[in-house]
């Protein structure tokens, strides 16, 4: 004998039962719901372990003075290596300032190139506009390592290898994609009527640009600047081929320490690099607003 399957309602949206009024909701019986909640909670807990476990291990190593297999935790804890890293003679602080100077110069050069270009792409009619936009995207569409190898080979001819200028140029190429696309989107989001109003009131084109368009596009431009700054600060491959060993950026120092087995120095350097990255992740939405994001690539 075949019994008809018990009728079950699907979907929380089909029948709305005010929460807390009934034990049997549209989603099923309470124990089933609890079990599912628990399952989801466990899955998210597992994800949290996978995301934060590696970061926690980094923190552990930065305070470990002695740690080897099969011990689960460091045998001796302390601040010894923090003192080493922050000691001016150790070179880590010098690397940090080299990295910051390179990142600031990269931001300055990228903005000097991309603000006029972004404005022209967003507000003026350009022949082959979409081809030009595509050209700025192209460096992201090719695996970049062999590009860097050949940039280094060309820079060698001009004695740019191992110089600050060389590293800034390589980082600028990498950052230009973001800065051109985001500044173009930021200018595109500026209401054209406001610029026209300024012109009608007698402002010259350049005055309208500096007093109306530029201030209104500023949050997007700041966002692209932060992006370029971070990309430069974190860049490894280009610096490795063009800058090393004369220019020692923080990522290169991290790499050297890690490969030499000095996990404490490598972990502390990694934590220093993490600070700006996480700060930006937490506030990215404050700068990149929906109206700008929706114009990216248009």
């Amino acid at each position: 004998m075949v019994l008809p399957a018990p009728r079950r309602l699907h979907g929380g949206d089909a029948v709305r039962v005010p929460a807390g009024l009934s034990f049997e909701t549209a989603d099923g019986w309470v124990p089933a719901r609890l079990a599912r909640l628990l399952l989801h909670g466990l899955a998210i807990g597992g994800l949290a372990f996978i995301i934060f476990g590696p970061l926690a291990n980094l923190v552990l190593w930065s305070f470990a003075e002695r740690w080897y297999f099969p011990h689960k935790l460091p045998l001796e804890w302390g601040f010894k290596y923090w003192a080493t890293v922050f000691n001016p003679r150790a070179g880590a602080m010098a690397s940090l300032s080299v990295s910051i100077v390179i990142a600031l110069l990269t931001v300055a050069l990228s903005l000097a190139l991309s603000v006029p270009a972004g404005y022209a792409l967003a507000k003026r009619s350009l022949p082959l506009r979409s081809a030009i936009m595509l050209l700025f995207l192209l460096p992201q569409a090719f695996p970049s390592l062999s590009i860097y190898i050949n940039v280094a080979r060309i820079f060698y001819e001009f004695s740019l290898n191992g110089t600050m200028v060389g590293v800034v140029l390589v980082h600028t190429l990498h950052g230009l994609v973001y800065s051109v696309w985001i500044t173009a989107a930021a200018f595109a989001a500026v209401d054209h009527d406001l610029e026209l109003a300024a012109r009608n009131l007698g402002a010259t084109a350049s005055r309208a640009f500096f007093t109306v368009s530029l201030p209104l596009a500023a949050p997007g431009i700041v966002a692209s600047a932060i992006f370029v700054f971070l990309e430069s600060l974190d860049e490894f491959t280009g610096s490795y081929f063009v800058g090393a060993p004369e220019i020692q950026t923080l990522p290169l120092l991290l790499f050297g320490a890690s490969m030499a087995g000095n996990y404490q120095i490598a972990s502390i350097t990694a934590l220093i690099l993490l600070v700006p990255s996480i700060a930006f992740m937490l506030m990215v939405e404050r700068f990149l607003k929906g109206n700008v994001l929706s114009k990216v690539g248009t």
Partner: protein
Amino acid sequence: MTFRTRVLPLVLTLPALVVVAVLFLVPLGYSLLSAFEETETGEFGFGNFAKSFEFYGWDMLFTVIITGLATLLIGALSIAIGGYLVLGGHPRLVAAMRWLYRWPLFIPFIVAAQCMRTFLAKNGIMNNLLVTAGVIEPLSAQSFLDWRGILFTFVWKQTAFAALLVSGAMASLDPATIEAARNLGAGKLRVLVEIIVPQVRVTVAVGMILSLVTILSVLSVPLMVGTGSPTMLTVDMAFRINSYGDYGVANALGFLTYLLAATVAWFYLRRGVSTGGTP
């Protein structure tokens, strides 16, 4: 007015274009020429490729498998995360997921590599958890710093980016189609697979292709996380340059990475055309 409307926009764009031309197009052309140039005679030839296949054949296969597997996992996980955020469960858990998944987004690859070098090591937290949970015996703990580590690191780092794109696309879908399917009795998984994913297919593919190109560009992860052989082609390229100054073979390997990225992009585009853009 001709200067303002015709010449000025070009003048404003020109400096940025020159930088891209000099720092990208010229090296790109250089790498192509160098890949197809015989080292001894300087003539056109395939000698560098013959040498590449002879020395690095296994690494090519390894690179294809690792990047392919990582890209598929990134695509699947980004759909799962985006789907959970749209279809949801308990609001608190959805909020937790939204807060959680994007942490690796701005973490530099080199930092991720250092994290994994410790996390996946023999005495790393990963093994500690497995031992504590009773999954493995303390002495059978092994290091994951090989192909598994490379795969794990790339997926860990890159899924956040793909999921950000995919969940954004999913959030901007018309909720009416999803509601309609739910009202007709479709389960959440079925709604995700049959209603949502077909509509965000392009975004998923963009996220996957950009991740693939990134994986083919990163040198620090295979250097720091993968130990021994076989390894990724990026490591081989750096080795050819640093140890032998052999630009021919390095550029031939580079050409193969372009080819791999281009094949995947082309395969996707062709499929997009053949289905006529229907979802």
